[in-house]
Structure formats: structure tokens, C-alpha cells
């Protein structure tokens, strides 16, 4: 249960070694009932491909966009998301929490 990120980190290494631009996103803080625990990872490449999860689907799209920026600039970013809103409820994501996500380039 604490080791599901195995493939994600291996993918991050493999993607980088294959010459792709790669960023790693990590949930570093959560408040309320966040969907994914602190330490959860998402790996993103410069084409927008990704593997893993930081929010069970709520904010992945936004993280991927920011990650592509981070791959270009090389500068890490910390993103904050409130995942409690009407839309989230309507599509069945009962998150109701806030998460902070650290995005860094793999170099």
C-alpha cells in the first residue's frame, strides 16, 4: 500500500534515459479528505503523456500543463489545488480537500 509508486518512478527513470523531457509531481501536503496521500507521484513527459496520480483525476490535467512548463524552464513549482467544488461533486469526486503538489524536472 505504501509502494504503489514503483512503476511510476521506474517510468520516470526510463523515460529520461530514453531522452524524453520528464517532470515528477509529488503530493507534499494535504488538508481535509484529499483523494491521494502525501507522497503520491505523477510522472509527466514533454508530450503530455503521464503515469500515476496525485488526485484521483481531479487536477491531473492542470498538473500536466504546469509540468510541461517546468520541463521547459527547469524551475520547480509548488501548486495548490482546492478540490472541493460543485463540478467535482457532480462528476463523483467527493474529495472536499486541498492538496499541494511539488513539480520538478528530472535532469
Amino acid at each position, binding site marked *: *500500500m*505504501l*509502494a504503489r*509508486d*514503483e512503476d511510476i*518512478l*521506474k517510468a*520516470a*527513470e526510463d523515460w*529520461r*534515459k530514453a531522452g524524453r523531457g520528464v517532470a*515528477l509531481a*509529488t503530493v*507534499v*501536503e494535504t488538508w481535509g479528505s484529499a483523494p491521494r*496521500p*502525501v*507522497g503520491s507521484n505523477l510522472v509527466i513527459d514533454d508530450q503530455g503523456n503521464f503515469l500515476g496520480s496525485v488526485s484521483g483525476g481531479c487536477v491531473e490535467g492542470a498538473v500536466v500543463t504546469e509540468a510541461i512548463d517546468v520541463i521547459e524552464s527547469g524551475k*520547480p513549482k*509548488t501548486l495548490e489545488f482546492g478540490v472541493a467544488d460543485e463540478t467535482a461533486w457532480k462528476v463523483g469526486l467527493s474529495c472536499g480537500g486541498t492538496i499541494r503538489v*511539488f513539480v*520538478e*524536472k*528530472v*535532469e
Partner: protein
Amino acid sequence: MKIEILKTLNEERAARRAAIVVTHQDSGEQRLVKAEDAARDPLKDILDKHFRSGKSGMEETPQGKVFLTVHVPPTRLVITGAVHISQALAPIAGLLGYDVTIVDPRTAFASIERFPDVKVIAEWPDVALPPLGIDRYTAFVALTHDPKIDDPGLTIALKSHCFYIGALGSRKTHARRVTRLKEERGFTDNEIGRIHSPIGLDIGAVSPAEIAVAIMGEITARLRQADAA
């Protein structure tokens, strides 16, 4: 993250060794601490806490806020004895996230029908256990009541760094076991002291399932609490 850090981290994980990535929030500076190096680290106490809980998290340090990404291997439970208690113990351990392996040379006991979804090895412990590589994220439990099966298993567990060893049996049975382990296998009192017997927390367990709960309670305490007996 530097690819060297990522590479080393993946190597540690593949080898079932724990490691923590320390990231300074302000500078973005990053380093990897292997479990074996934690005792010499300036953040020793904080690192210890996180290695034990297995949880990632933010921490305040004299150098500012750091984020710790904790990677510990999945815990394993190795049992000798495909017995009644094991039938309850295996699914409970599974719920707690353990990879469970049961070893019992008696093929009538070690049948797949009795243990769906569990790895069962119908072999003697001296044959079955060494390839499993019992390590510090493994708990070992001897449940057969039969010294021919339990003793060789305990011998291998006592020579390993597994975090928990338990053996079923009354105080009388255990006293005889201690004598055997000393006289026949050359262990010291200190070494034998690692064995939890009577096995499990004292919760008045009666049924096999209750005994299984008592055992998993004790294993959990040993895994998570620094000063657990």
C-alpha cells in the same frame, strides 16, 4: 530531481531497501538518504520517525522546511504451518498490506483449496525459506506446534534481520523450544529473546481468528513503535 538520485532510489527499491528523498522547499535542493545511513544523518530523529511510519510528509528543520518522500518496501509475512490459525492470519495480514507466504511440507495441509490467493510452498523450511530472502521488512511466525518444522524455520529467522519473530505454544512448550534452540542449534538467550512466545498481544484470544488478530496486533506494534516489546 537529478537522474542519479532517481536511479539510486530505484535500485534501493528493487533491492527491498528503504530510502528517503529529502527536498528543501525553498532551495529545491535534494538528496537521498539510504536507511543504512540514517543514523549518521543530521536529521536522524526525523528520518527515523518516517522510516518507521513509512509515511511521507513535511517537516520543519533548523535549515527550513523539508519534504520527505519515504520509500519503504512492502512488508512480508512468512508463516510455517498451513494450519487453522494461518487460514485467518493470511487474509488479515493481506488486508494490512503484507505479502504472505506459507511454508508447510505436509502436502495435505498446504493445499490451494485451503489457501486461495496465498503463496503456499509445500516444502521444508530449510529448503523454502532461504530463497525468500527474509529481511528487516519481514515478519516470521511459526505455527505448526511441530519442532521438526518450526525449529528449522526459527533458526533461519533468528539468523536474519526480520523485524518480528513469533512462535505458537504454551509457556511449557516454549521452554522446551528454548532448550532445543540452545542445545541443538547453539543460540544464546539473548538471540532467543527475539521470539515472541506466547505469541500475540494478550487480548484473551480464543478462536483461531482471534489469535490471528492478536498476532497481527503484535506484529503491527513491532513494526510501528520504536519501543514495542
